[in-house]
Each structure stands twice: as structure tokens, then as C-alpha cells.
């Protein structure tokens, strides 16, 4: 009786294992972005000359592009040189999109693959039934050199989502509900497995898998619905340390208040909170369905005159689709600005850094102290619907 995480690991290694064992495991895909390649490259060249497989590595420029200063530009040059020297085939220049979205859209990556990314939100591809984990630069340098890593077989928690996802809430609200329930360390060192009664869209699965790290999870993955992937689905009576049930009838639009992701209250209960910036974007909430929802709210309206609104599509293909469906026009008419596909202001590097005492409502995944700029600024996290409605009102509302 194996759960989905154990099944995928079993397909990758020959030895038997139990929960808690440390096993060596080959890596199907390794990914770095312009942020984490800086130290990965530095460490890699100290231990090896050639990467283990130039076709199995993704290098994606998304965090700081176009470069915000000379220093960033120089590191980007080094990144491109490294890609050329090594002959790495999966290279994405800035503007193609956020690494996790590019991975999600990539057809070479298959259900059941073991994916390691030098970014904590690498579990996003759990939405396509891959086992994925985030690591730091030294771990990634070792993977670049050897094509393998080691993992401890984690105990797993199942999150069983009951009921239908209607337009009352969005998948972001469900994750915030989970964070409220189990706290930021609720799944630390553990696997997190989502199962739903009704099939969720890829976008919704991606939002939930993306945020697993925010409750500490090592892996976050969805149970498959599609016939061709049912062989990966957890066996009946397979081992879960805990099963958490979330009834969608009882979930309402949520907001995570500063400065922790588990500081969650229903939007209806928040005291009047004026906002300066409304941001829809990122690897959590910058997908087509998020923008469609927001555009329906903003259509024919103007955002509040005290609010700046930033729209950051998670990938070029999403941006193109937004153009095609006239969604971009809605945002521009409403008074928002569009930034290039990429991480945008999420991590405080550029394109919307927050100043003293500024307040931002965002579809991103982190509201940490000072993350988007000033240590006296505040970040609230909500769904695209909550962000769009708040942009109109000038304060947080759903």
C-alpha cells in the first residue's frame, strides 16, 4: 500500500524503503533561475567541469529582468555564458515567464517525474503529478555534477477537499484556509497530498501545489483524476499520518495579514485597511484564470485613485492569451499597468518595491516582513478576485 509520493520514488530507485529512510535518487529534471544560478554556478565549478546532462537542466531568467542595475546585468551575462559553455538546451531568456509556469507548460516533463528546482516553489509542478522539491544552491550544484540527490522518505498528510469549487471562492482561499488550520510549520519535513471530490483545473491545482512550502512541506502533489495517470494515485488505505478535510461550503474569501501566511482571517472580518498597491501576478496567482476573474470585476470600471495596480502575467503564453481575449485592454482601461512576464515585485527587487508604510494586497505567496521593500510596509495576500475588488474600493474587500 503506497501513497503517490512513495509510488513515484519506488519507480525511481531499486532498493526497498520505509518512512524516515534516507535514499539516493536520480533526478529527472533540474532547474535554476537567475537568482539561484549565481551560487549554483559558483559551487558547481568548484567540483566539476561538465553538467550531468545538458538536456535535463532548465535555466530560466525570471526574477530580475530586464536587469534593474549594472550588477544584475553582469550576473545575467555570466548566466548566459554558463549556459553556452555547458550547452544547456532548456534555456529561457527573460520575459518568457516565471520558472514554475514555464515548467508547468512544458510538455517534455511527464507525470511521475522527479523534479528538483533551486527555488522553494518548485512543487508547483505537483499539479501535473510530478514529485518536486525545492533545494538550495549547493544541493543543486551537486545535482548538476552528479544527476542525483538524496531525500528522507517523508510521512505524508492528505488534504481532502470536499464539495465543488464555485465562483464564491478561489483556490487561493482554500490554501489560506489550510494555512490557518495547520500553521506555517504544519507540514514541515512532510509530504502534502491534495485530493478533491470534484476535478480541479490545472491553474487551481498549481496554486495549491505552489504554496505547499508555506506550510513547510517537502513535496506537494495532487492525486490524479485522469485515467492515464491513475497508476500513480495513492492506493486505498495507503499510509497517511493525518487526513485533513476542508469542506468548500465552509470556506470564504480569505486574506493573510502581515507578516505570516497563517495569519488568516475571512475578508469579511477585516477592519478597514486602505491599500496603496494591488498586485495580480506571480507563480501563485498570475495565471489566465486569475486574470479572467479579475477582468470580469474591472470591466468598464476605474480603480480607486489612491491605488496603483500592477498586472504581471506568469508567462508569455498567458500574456498572449490575455491579448487575444481582450483582457489586457480591460486592465489598461481600468488604470492598471502591465509588467513583463516574470516574478515582478513579489520579492522586492524591482517593478513595484514598497516604500515606508505602504500597503499592498497581492496574489503572491509570501507576506513576510519587508519582503517587497520597506520593513515598515505591509503585504496582505488574497485571491485575484479579492485583489481586483480591493483595487476598485481602495481598501481590502471581497
Amino acid at each position, binding site marked *: 500500500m503506497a501513497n503517490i509520493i512513495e509510488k513515484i520514488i519506488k519507480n525511481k530507485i531499486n532498493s526497498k524503503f520505509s518512512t524516515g529512510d534516507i535514499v539516493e535518487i536520480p533526478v529527472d529534471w533540474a532547474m535554476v533561475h537567475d537568482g539561484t544560478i549565481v551560487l549554483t554556478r559558483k559551487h558547481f565549478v568548484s567540483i566539476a567541469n561538465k553538467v550531468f546532462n545538458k538536456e535535463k537542466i532548465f535555466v530560466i531568467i525570471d526574477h530580475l529582468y530586464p536587469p534593474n542595475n549594472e550588477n544584475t546585468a553582469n550576473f545575467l551575462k555570466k548566466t548566459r555564458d554558463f549556459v553556452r559553455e555547458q550547452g544547456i538546451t532548456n534555456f529561457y531568456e527573460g520575459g518568457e515567464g516565471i520558472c514554475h509556469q514555464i515548467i508547468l507548460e512544458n510538455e517534455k516533463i511527464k507525470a511521475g517525474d522527479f523534479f528538483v528546482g533551486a527555488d522553494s516553489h518548485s512543487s508547483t509542478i505537483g499539479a501535473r503529478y510530478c514529485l518536486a522539491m525545492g*533545494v538550495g544552491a549547493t544541493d543543486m550544484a551537486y545535482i548538476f555534477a552528479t544527476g542525483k540527490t*538524496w531525500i528522507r522518505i517523508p510521512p505524508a498528510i492528505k488534504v481532502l477537499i470536499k464539495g465543488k469549487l464555485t465562483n464564491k471562492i478561489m483556490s487561493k482561499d482554500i490554501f489560506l484556509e489550510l494555512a490557518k488550520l495547520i500553521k*506555517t510549520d504544519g507540514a514541515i519535513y512532510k509530504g502534502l497530498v491534495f485530493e478533491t471530490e470534484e476535478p480541479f483545473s490545472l491553474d487551481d491545482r498549481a496554486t495549491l501545489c505552489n504554496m505547499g512550502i508555506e506550510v513547510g512541506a517537502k513535496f506537494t502533489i495532487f492525486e490524479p483524476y485522469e485515467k492515464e495517470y491513475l497508476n500513480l494515485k495513492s492506493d486505498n488505505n495507503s499510509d497517511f499520518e493525518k487526513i485533513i478535510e476542508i469542506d468548500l461550503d465552509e470556506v470564504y474569501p480569505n486574506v493573510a495579514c502581515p507578516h505570516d501566511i497563517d495569519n488568516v482571517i475571512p475578508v469579511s472580518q477585516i477592519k478597514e485597511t486602505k491599500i496603496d498597491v494591488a498586485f495580480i501576478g506571480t507563480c501563485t496567482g498570475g495565471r489566465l484564470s486569475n486574470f479572467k476573474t479579475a477582468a470580469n470585476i474591472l470591466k468598464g470600471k476605474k480603480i480607486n485613485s489612491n491605488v496603483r495596480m500592477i498586472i504581471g502575467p506568469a508567462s508569455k503564453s498567458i500574456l498572449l492569451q490575455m491579448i487575444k481575449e481582450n483582457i489586457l485592454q480591460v486592465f489598461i482601461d481600468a488604470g492598471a499597468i502591465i509588467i513583463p512576464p516574470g516574478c515582478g515585485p513579489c520579492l522586492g527587487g524591482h517593478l513595484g518595491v514598497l516604500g515606508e508604510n505602504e500597503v499592498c494586497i497581492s496574489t503572491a505567496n509570501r507576506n513576510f516582513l519587508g519582503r517587497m521593500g520597506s520593513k515598515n510596509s505591509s503585504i496582505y495576500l488574497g485571491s485575484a478576485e479579492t485583489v481586483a475588488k480591493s483595487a476598485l474600493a481602495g481598501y481590502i474587500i471581497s
Partner: protein
Amino acid sequence: MENIIKCKIFKFEDNINTDIIISGKYLRTEDTNIFKEHAFEVLRGDNFYKQINKGDVIFAKRNFGCGSSREQAALAVKELGVSMLIAKSFGRIFYRNIINLGLPAYILKENSQLDELIDKIEENDNITVFPDKGELVIESKNIHLEFYKITGIAKNIIEAGGLLNYAKKELSNNSM
């Protein structure tokens, strides 16, 4: 000879995330001094590194190092010169990063009074750590705590002085 560490504690609360340890704006450099100089800046102000003496211990509550995979956070802590970290729990990517840099991170064993005892521990308390026994003592407060010893591959990595040294050995053995 038994390994005993005597030094001072720097104490941190729950959920100290990697953005707090080193802000996103300082990441684009290979100069590890930058990480040290700006470590914990949003929480402890400028020049926190000047308060730390070589060998001091970071002592934290739950989920220390949660958040991003940025290894600069682990490097910042290492460059501060601390000898080890002790916490109720660590963010798992940060934990791996710390071990990979060759620095021990110890997880406290649960006991019914753990939270109460941790609350009594203060910054600058003197601590004596017995890594081989998995025990620590804060004499002035009469506090004795146990932690999990580091075993298996993590132990081998720390003994090698970090994952890169460990890898060099492994890769040269393979090529022989």
C-alpha cells in the same frame, strides 16, 4: 576527547524566514561579506554581525529559516561566525542548506515543558552544548534540554566540512 561548546546565545522567535535573515535586495553577489553585513537587518538593524563573537549559538523557536531556498540566508548565518543553530524546528530547505555548508543545526526534543523553558531563555545567556551527547545546559537558569544528534549522511557532510568537500571526495573516488 569530548566536544564541548561554551558560548553565548542569540535568541529568535517563531517563523524567522529567509527574507528576514537576508533581504532579497542583497542576493545578487558572490561576496559573502554582504550577506553577513545585512543579516537580520529588518529585525535587528544595521551591524548585527558586530554583536556576535565567533562560536556563539543561534537559538530559535519553531520554523527557523522558513521560506525561500536562497542559500544566501544559510551563508549569512555561517558568515556571522556562529558555531551552530538550535531550534524547535527548521524550514527544511534552510536546514539542508545549513548542513550543506558544514554547520550543525540541532532540533530540540519535545518535552512537556519545552515551550515554558524556551521562554525563560534570553539573549546573551551562556550555554554549554554537548553535541556528542545531544544535550545542552543553561546553568544560570538551571535549564537542561536534549536535542537530536545529527546522524547518517548529514553527519558525513558536516564532518567533510560541507557538501562541496564531500562531493569532491566522492567524485575523485569515482574517477579512480
